[in-house]
């Protein structure tokens, strides 16, 4: 897979042929701004329903193996 990836990345250098120096990036295809919602409380999901579909739960919380080797 690594070789395939390297091949793809090589192929993707085709855009180096383009002069992009004065081109603005296009992140989103729509010109919207200020999409906001009112600060109104909506009901919470049911905890038991949610935890029932979790891989592991305990005391109303999601249970995970010990957190080591990670940084907050």
């Amino acid at each position, binding site marked *: *897979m690594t070789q*395939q*990836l390297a*091949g*793809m*990345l090589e*192929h*993707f250098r*085709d*855009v*180096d042929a*383009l002069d*992009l120096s004065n*081109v*603005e*990036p*296009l*992140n*989103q*295809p*729509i010109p*919207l701004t200020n*999409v906001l*919602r009112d600060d109104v409380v909506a009901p919470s*999901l*049911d905890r038991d*329903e*949610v935890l029932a*579909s*979790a*891989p*592991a739960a305990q005391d109303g919380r*999601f249970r*995970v*193996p*010990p*957190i*080591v*080797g*990670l940084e907050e």
Partner: protein
Amino acid sequence: MSPSRRTVVDVASAVANGSLSAMAVLEENLAAITAREAEIHAFNLVTVDQARERATQIDADVRAGKTVGRLAGVTIALKDNMCTRGVETTCSSKILAGWKPPYDATVVRRLADEGAVFVGKTNLDEFAMGSSTENSAFGPTRNPLDTSRVPGGSSGGSAAAVAAGFATASLGSDTGGSIRQPAALCGLVGVKPTYGMVSRQGLVAFGSSLDQIGPFTTTVADAALLMEVIAGHDPLDSTSLPQPAPSLAGELGKGVQGMRIGRITDMPAGSSPDVLAQLEAAFDALRNAGATVVDVQMPSMLYGLTAYYLVAPAEASSNLARFDGVRFGLRVDAKDVNSMYGATRAAGFGDEVKRRIMLGTYALSAGYYDAYYGKALKVRRLIADDFATAYAKCDAILTPTSPTVAFKFGDKTSNPLAMYLCDVFTIPTNLAGHAAMSVPFGTGEAGLPVGVQILAPALGEAPMFRVAAELERAR
């Protein structure tokens, strides 16, 4: 009338006026499923009981004289990347197998509110990453028109379900052609709406700035009706355009007299002659109906492939990070949480998904952002600019939807780049956020359907459907 030829428009009006029962429509579909689903594998899940319950309810409502919706009794299959409350939603991935969302996608709610009957959740390339539905963790879907061939992808199950008469219509999602290409390969109408026209809320994200939900139908009028139901502003999606659904049914009879149809003179090569012949025939048909064909250029079109295969994986690498074995879905236990992530994702994701996550992670990483992701966004701009120039001269553009008719299983699985080339004509629309659709137009190799793609600018659904209806009349 064979079940696959029942149309959304016919079913909805017949069920509403009591001349046809929702249950009868459903039972036709279920009979077809019984006959052929084992071979086709369009579905990850057929929701027989819920569908019958729903059909019963609608028939009761009709008998009781209650108002029924615009889609009363219309059977619909949903791509299995749309959340359905309490009904398994897997994205054809082991990592989500068994997951029952606690909420409905907006499109699901809108269809249900109009009386649609959901038959099941359809197969897809895992997380919608693919062009053949061969990447499903649950096995491929076969093309009902020739089962030695793929139905296209990623919404191959949704296309196959309609083509095989398992449902009157279906919904798919289109990130780089995932509705239009399977529609072409299965002989259907498939619509990729303008970005922001249909809510993405509840659609499991692949490439968030590219994804749109759209319909698969057997007729252009059906597609128009479904669009009128599923489109329109949704406050739960910040990228939803703040306007009502377009009125499209009225466009269909207007014809194309006076319209200007663009032909791309510098179109990327590689399309097969049978496909190109049908494209020419389509131009002729429109010309005969009073349209003018004008030459336009899309010099950046070929580079769209690169832009797309960097932008979509970059967004996907972030979107798919949440599948971490903590809150839902698969977990492979391990001694610590970091090992658990690794083991879960290694076991849960298929090769194509892993490939794209790696690609996207790489494209966004600090040392390579400018060389890959940053450049891709600039190419995206060039493509949008190309389109702007072209649409100054024309109202819509015709291209092939797919360079070839449906191909055989395994033809392109060994070479990801060859598979990616399937999307060369469909991708630019997603990058620009414009409207596009595929309509069946004639046949090619082995008598298989050819799809012609109609491209239109953002919010150009009305002219696009005029052209589509004209091609449908001419085919």
